[in-house]
């Protein structure tokens, strides 16, 4: 279980997060949503120690500030938002970097398996810098998957931290990647993702954290958090959610919020 208590982050003197607490359990997907500037990415970066923050973050009860980096690397992997790479590495070489954190030597085809899982089979010999944005994003995802391949390790559940994992993907690959992440959670791993797309969030999240102005506005199952009232308050426009048959699945259309002049 991952828990964060009373997280405060100041950037350039201005408070960005003002006391956010959350608890995420393995076996499910926790999605952080909120308008631009609400602190979504900042929260993820605080949770992964990319930013200094006040407040305690615990992984299965251990304060991660006191865990050595190599041990954390066997428990969690982090997908950054945009990644520029310095030298002309091939796709295979990038994905293999994920293996360095894995304890025991993995089977030789692991990197290619990971590429196949994100729909990039056969891309091994391509240069990372020559790929499209979406392909680069999926290459990084394959690297991250290599790092924590089995959702449950000897020390407990492993975690994926994803900053907008599908932001530059087409709809087909969005579904493919989200299915992959949902599968990782279903097999006992933990997934925490920052997302922009409320419909994908409604489809895949087990828990939604709704942020607004650096505070947690609501946290809970999608049906409880993605409501007309909460979303309209968070995003500052009149949003209406709907449910689609056959199963009661939440969706919303931006058409409803448009102010017709």
């Amino acid at each position, binding site marked *: 279980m991952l828990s964060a208590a009373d997280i405060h982050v100041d950037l350039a003197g201005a408070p960005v997060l003002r006391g956010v607490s959350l608890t995420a359990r393995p076996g499910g997907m926790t999605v952080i949503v909120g308008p631009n500037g609400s602190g979504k990415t900042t929260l993820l970066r605080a949770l992964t120690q990319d930013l200094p923050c006040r407040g305690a973050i615990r992984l299965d009860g251990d304060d991660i500030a006191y865990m050595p980096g190599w041990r954390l690397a066997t428990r969690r992997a982090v997908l950054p938002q945009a990644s520029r790479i310095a030298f002309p590495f091939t796709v295979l070489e990038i994905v293999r970097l994920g293996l360095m954190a894995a304890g025991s030597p993995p089977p030789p085809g692991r990197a*290619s398996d990971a590429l196949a899982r994100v729909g990039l089979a056969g891309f091994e010999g391509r240069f990372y810098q020559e790929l499209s944005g979406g392909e680069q994003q999926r290459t990084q995802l394959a690297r991250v998957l290599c790092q924590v391949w089995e959702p449950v390790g000897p020390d407990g559940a492993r975690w994926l931290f994803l900053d907008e994992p599908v932001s530059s993907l087409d709809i087909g690959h969005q579904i493919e990647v989200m299915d992959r992440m949902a599968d990782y959670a279903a097999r006992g791993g933990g997934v925490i993702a920052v997302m922009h797309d409320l419909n994908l969030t409604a489809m895949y999240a087990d828990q939604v954290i709704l942020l607004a102005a650096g505070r947690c506005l609501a946290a809970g199952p999608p049906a409880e958090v993605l409501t007309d009232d909460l979303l309209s308050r968070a995003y500052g426009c009149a949003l209406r959610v709907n449910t689609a048959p056959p199963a009661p699945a939440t969706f919303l259309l931006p058409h409803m919020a448009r102010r017709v002049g």
Partner: protein
Amino acid sequence: MAVADLAGARLRPVAGDRDRRARRVMLALIAVLGAVSVLSLGTGASGTSLWAALGKLARGEEIGLREEVILFDIRLPRLAMGAMVGAALAVSGAVMQGLFRNPLADPGLVGVGAGAGLGAICAIVLGAALPFALGDTLGQYLVPVAAFFGGWATTILLYRLSTSRGRTSVAVMLLGGIALGALAGALSGILIYMADDAQLRDLTFWGLGSLAGATWDKVLVAGPLIALALAATPFLARALNALALGEGPAAHLGIAVQRMKNISILTVAAATGAAVAVSGGIGFVGIVVPHLLRLITGPDHRYLLVNSALLGAALLIAADMIARTVIAPAELPIGIVTATLGGPFFLWILLRNRSLLDL
């Protein structure tokens, strides 16, 4: 080649996997280094033949004093120093480029070379003013020692400048390095202005870079430092690979980023300081060698660092051979040879890869 084939045979070659090629290049470079070394021992202004001397030794005959001095006290230390300095310059370039995640970063660029130069110039111009006892004790070590401390001090200063709360900013380090290099250059200029004619001649030759003054003493001054720096690089290779993703992602892969930065900086300072101290400013090796190898075998530092050391050593030995034979019995400063060969070559690489090069 056979060893590489055996090592690679277990794995089916996968597209995008350049390990096998890098291992083959490594073996080829070892062979080239060996060949260039033998060739260098056999060539020189005096026309002394290595093979004749070896033949005599093999038959159990005495070799003449002249041959012995030329082979073992002139050519051999010079060969050793060329190999050491070439390896040190190429590896410190490769480490610094990995650390800065920039293919143009080079100890010469971030002021380490200029700082070492300032140290050496101080020693040449102001050395006579030292208290007699100190100047006498240091003797011929004065210039090398001063150059090493100049390079080391610049690196430490640069490091302090660009590090706050345990984080090093690469941007501040690059820009600060350029400023420190300019400052060291200005101070050096003032000292050169003060120098007398004899000192000016020394300065000019030191500044162009030369292996002409190679002695076993100098090899023993620089050798341990360079060996120590080279010994640290295998531990840096994986960390530098991870760092190519950025500092955050490297940390998430379990790399102790700050510690590996410290080790990288010390490695670069030791290798560059020692190399500049004994040989002056030899340009282009640190930037051309890693760049060329990246084009052939990719940026994987597990191979890049070793191969840079090998190619750097071979290149400098070859350049030195050219320097001391083209206008024999006089010789060219080796810096002129590396710059005349390296400059156009580097421009050609830049032009070919203009679209790929990413600052």
